[in-house]
Structures are given as structure tokens and as C-alpha cells.
């Protein structure tokens, strides 16, 4: 099953490699990984999308929690949560026909064109990973996708629940 694991850890050199190490060492899957300092810059927050059965997920959370640098670990998919991913995608937009078609799709997905030149559009889309997949697919159907870059998922639990030091 797909799971989103959220980790709060000391923002120190080497912390990230330890977490990544746990995944490679123990043969767990990483579908995406998103990491940045929190508003308290001594801490980093990491969101890992992974998949596995309940036993594997339990081991992942325990093994990550065991790292000395890690303060807290939670499985966001245990409860209701908000998740977002951002994609930048550059597509060929050479003809008026393609441009108007792409524009329409951008509107439907509530995406934004953030850069343009004579031949290309660079578009920003946010949403769930599925929405991003769908958008990319739509682009492929309409024109040529030159390149794309995704941030990986980040997320928060809904309501009272939080991950704090």
C-alpha cells in the first residue's frame, strides 16, 4: 500500500544520508522524498512516499525513529491529511493551435504558465500526485513534453494533529 511517512529531524549534516541509508540498507522502497528546513531552522521535515505491507511500514517507521537525529515519525496515511506535490513541466508550444489547447488544459487543471518563449511553455502545477500524472498525460496528448521536474509529495495531517519538537 502507498504510504506517506513524515519525519521531523535535526537539521544537521549527514542526517539525510542516514535516513536514505535506512531505506537502501533494509530494502525499503522510496517513491519520492521531499526535504527542507522547517520554520525552526534547527529542524528539517522530510516527507517520504513509500509502499509496502503493514509489517514493512511498521518496520520503516520504527527503524527511522531509531535514528539518533530523528525526533518524530508519523504515517500521514493513517489518518486524514492534506498532500501536495509541485511539478514544473516544459512543453513545446510552437503553433497557435497547440498554444490554445495547452492554455485550456492549464485552466482546467488550475495550473499556471510561468515562463514562455517562441517555442515553449513552462507550466507549474500543484496538487496530488495523481493530478500531476493526469496533467502530464494530457500534455503528452497535445504536444511534446521537453522536460519536467517534480518535488515529491509533502503533506500535513488534518485538524489538531501535528509534528512538533
Amino acid at each position, binding site marked *: 500500500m502507498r504510504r506517506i511517512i513524515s519525519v521531523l*529531524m*535535526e537539521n544537521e*549534516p*549527514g542526517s539525510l*544520508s*542516514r535516513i536514505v*541509508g535506512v531505506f537502501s*540498507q533494509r530494502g525499503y522502497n522510496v517513491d519520492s522524498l521531499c526535504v527542507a528546513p522547517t520554520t525552526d531552522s534547527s529542524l528539517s521535515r522530510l516527507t517520504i512516499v513509500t509502499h509496502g505491507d503493514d*509489517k514493512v511500514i*511498521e*518496520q520503516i517507521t*520504527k*527503524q527511522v*525513529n*531509531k535514528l*539518533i*537525529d*530523528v*525526533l518524530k515519525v508519523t504515517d500521514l496515511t493513517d489518518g486524514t491529511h492534506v498532500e501536495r506535490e509541485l511539478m514544473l513541466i516544459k512543453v513545446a508550444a510552437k503553433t497557435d493551435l497547440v498554444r490554445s489547447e495547452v492554455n485550456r488544459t492549464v485552466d482546467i487543471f488550475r495550473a499556471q504558465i510561468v515562463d514562455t518563449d517562441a517555442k515553449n511553455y513552462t507550466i507549474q502545477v500543484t496538487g496530488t500526485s495523481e493530478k500531476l500524472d493526469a496533467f502530464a498525460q494530457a500534455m503528452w496528448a497535445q504536444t511534446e513534453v521537453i522536460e519536467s521536474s517534480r518535488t515529491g509529495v509533502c503533506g500535513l495531517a488534518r485538524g489538531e494533529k501535528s509534528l512538533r*519538537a
Partner: protein
Amino acid sequence: MMSGAAMVVRALKDSGVTHVFGYPGGAVLDIYDALYAQDDVKHVLVRHEQAAAHMADGYARSTGKTGTVLVTSGPGATNTITGIATAYMDSIPMVVLSGQVPSMHIGEDAFQETDMVGCSRPIVKHSFLVKRAIDIPMAIAKAYYIANTGRPGPVVVDLPKDLVNVLEEHPYEYPEDVTMRSYNPTLKGHSKQIKKTVDTLLNAKRPVLYVGGGAITSEASDLITELAEKLNAPVTSTLMGLGAFSSVHEQFVGMLGMHGTLEANKTMHNADCIFALGARFDDRVTNNVEKFCPHATIIHVDIDPASISKTVAVHVPVVGSVDKVVEQVLNQISKKDLSGQKQKLADWWKQINSWRERQCLNYQKSDELIKPQQVIEALYKHTNGDAYVSSDVGQHQMFAALYYPFAKPRRWINSGGLGTMGFGLPAAMGVQMANPDAISVVVTGDGSIQMNIQELSTCLQYNLPVKIISLNNRALGMVRQWQDMIYKGRHSHSYMDSMPDFVKLAEAYGHVGIKVNHPSELDDAMAKCFALKDRLVFMDIAIDQNEHVYPMQIKYGAMDDMRLSKTERT
């Protein structure tokens, strides 16, 4: 004010370090210079850095204190890797200080640069790459704190050379108290889980206590003995737990697992309640997990939550240290009436005693050939069962574990998790350093002893009267046993026609060597060995090459599916 190098040595002293096992080199010359000027911390010069780590390990296992290693960057550091991994697998507290190239050269592939923090990452509990000289005391204090709290383990402190420069001075401040917001091991069991534990234990008709290395780490021997006696329950132990519960206690049914006793594995397999205390359901214990102990409600006490339900799903998880949890259980139990316990378990004991009657450790003696089991029995006799016995890895290790009953914790020193050949001699040296008046023995094999034999030189330098009991079967016996059983006796590269003369070798290093060839000589030779109290004695004992270790679990079977000899099975 003092130099970074002086800070390192001072911080070691302030962390309670008595011995440092090490080897010098470019990146740590400043630290070595600081060591020269003092005698608070004793430095032991080894002959190979791997041995330094195993010595620190033996020191730690026999005392409970953290072992300390000091090595230079590059090859010095990488040579410790096997020793660090050995300590990691068995949860042994150790701090490894490694030199590093100067900060400004890190990443340039400078001379003797290796990324030690990176190399050791999967086999350490934690590591530090120190960035500023003033951080040295805190990094070292934290290293010792982390190494020897919670589930212990090795910690690496990597020290770039510019930080320890003897010419630059900095203020020294050793923290009075180390606290870390991200690290707070749970010691006491959750009260709800304690209640469940007590209920399960008291309802059991066929309980067993399954004791592991965590019982030794947490010094829980007396408490476990009290609990076992109150419950009248049988006790088994892992290879790592031997001695936590006395092997000569009548409730002890022996070691369990791959080479466990028949009665231990039968008791486990038929139990209706397994109380696991600091043991981790390792694959060398469980055999096929699908068939593991089908009737049992399993209670698992472990300080490491990640150990619980890792291989075998348990019914009552209890996160906490073994001593604290057993104490909590005893507090609850003391309020109950336990007078019926003897009666209730009478049938269980009858069954266990019937398994014992098989006498699975019996073996065939010979007039011509020395049997390995017989050597261990003689060793037991000549040391009054009171030696520190370190071991290497192979058949001799299993014979030692099975035929030397350990009555006390911290007396059996072996590489259980990693199974590191070459561990035994340096470990026994660390034991001897920490316990100068004790008898420190290493049981080894002709293969293993050659993996750190250079340390005979260190033994001479420090007058370490370690007794080497080498079971010489002219073979990598354990490999050969598997080849006999699984590969139709095709002995692919498991025997050595080129054994050195170990007696001469011992003598060349300045020690005493004794060769034993015949069963009739064994007793006298042992007596002679242990009479030489101040000398290292190398006993080169020629044993029967064809002996196998039994009992032995049958692969893919349940715990109690075992071969009992070359021809018999359960």
C-alpha cells in the same frame, strides 16, 4: 585553554575512559602527542586496527563499560570496520575516534582520506564529524552517552587534523550532563503491557523464559532468576545471553536455536507462553518462522522497539529495559498467590525432563583421538567454571557454548551476530586488560586464530597471560561440516595442509606453546597451562577432524526439528 588534541584526551578522561586501544598515524599524531604527556588514560598499542576494535569490544563485554578505539584516517579507520560491525550486531558500547584529513582537504581525495562517517554509517548507532575544535568535548561526551544508553552500540567520532593541532588553543568545557531532544530511550514498561504480561505469565501452563543479550546489558540476572524461581518456569538462553541465567541452575534447559539443546528447542516449540527478555528472534534461533512455536502467546521485552515484531509477530510487546520491566513484573506478581505454581507446572516439567533424558550432548569418547567436547569439559574443570571465555567462530565456538556452563553474566564473550573469525584473541586480551586478575581464555580454531595472530606480539608487550585453547582440526571445521551434510562431503577449500607449527610460533612471539596430540595427555597439559599464571600459553590441541556439532536444527523445519548425530534425527 588547551589544544584540540589535549581536549580529546581530557574529554576521554572526563568520560571515564581507562583504556584506549589504538594505532598511530599521520592524522592522529597530535592526539598521540597529547597522550604522551599523561597517564590518566592508558593506551594499548595493537598490531592491527581490527584487533583494537575487538579488544575494546572484549573490554566492554566483560565490564559493561564503553570500549574505546583510536585510529588514524584512511586505512587505520577502514581496518576497524569489521570490529565496528561486530560490536553493532551484538549491541556493544564502543567509541571509535578516527583521525581525518584537515577540514580544508576533505573531499579532495587527499592522502589517507576516506569518508569514515560514510563507510561506517550502516554499522554504527551514530557518528559525528566534528567541525570545530571547541565542539570536541561535547561530541565525545555525546558519543559515550549514546554508545552506552538505550540499546548500546558503536559510535564513530571523526576528527579532522586541523582541529587537533597542538599549536592552537581553545577553551575546554565538558558538559555536566548530556541531554538530546531527539534521543530518549524508554526504560520502564507501559503499565498496561505489564499487566498483560503478568496475566499471560500466570495463566500459562507451559511457560518458558527466553533470555538474550539484553538481559546481560541491563544487568538483569538476579531479577530474572528471582522471577524464574517464583514462576517455576524453565529458562533457555540465546548464544548471546549465556550466563545471564546460570547454566547450572536446575531450571535451565540449555541454549536454544540452531545448535541449541533438544530440550531447549522442544520446550520452546511446545510452550504456551514465551517470555522473551532482550532477545531478538534471530534466524539462527527461530529456524523457519512459519513453523515457529505455534502454540505460544509471545511476550517480548526489548529496549529497541524496532526489534519487536521484526521477524516474528508478538502478542504482547513491551518496550523497556529488561531489568526495569522484570522488576515491574515482580512487583505485580508479589501481590499474587503463587503457591499453586509448582503444581500447575508439574506436567510441563515432566515433559521437559523426558526430553532431557535423551541427553543430547552425550558424545562418543575415543582412546586415540581427542574430542573437542572433551577439551571444553577439561577446560571447565581446570578453570573451576570461573574463567572469562572468549571465542572465535566455528565448531569450537559451539562446543564452548554447549560444554562450558556459564554461571555468571559477562563471562562468555563471542561474536554472535556477525560471526567474526579473528574476534577471539583480541577480545580475550581486552577482557584481560579490564580484569587483570581473572583467568582469560580464548577458545579458538586453527582457522580463526590465524586471523589476528599478530596480536601475540601485543600480548608480550603488555604481559597479557591469555590462555589460548586452539581446537586444531586441520580444517575450517564448520564449513567442512556443512559440506559433509549438504555437499556430499566435497570439501571445497575448507582444509589447510599448510598449518604452521603453532608451538614454535608462540615461542617466536616470546610465549609458551604446548602441543597436545593424545587424549591421555590432555589433563596434564591443561594443568600445566593454568599453572603458568603469568604467561601466555598457546595450547595447540589436535582434535578429531571428523566431529560434527550436534544437535543441529534441520533447515526449513520448526525449532525442534533437529539432527541429533550423523545418523539420528528427531
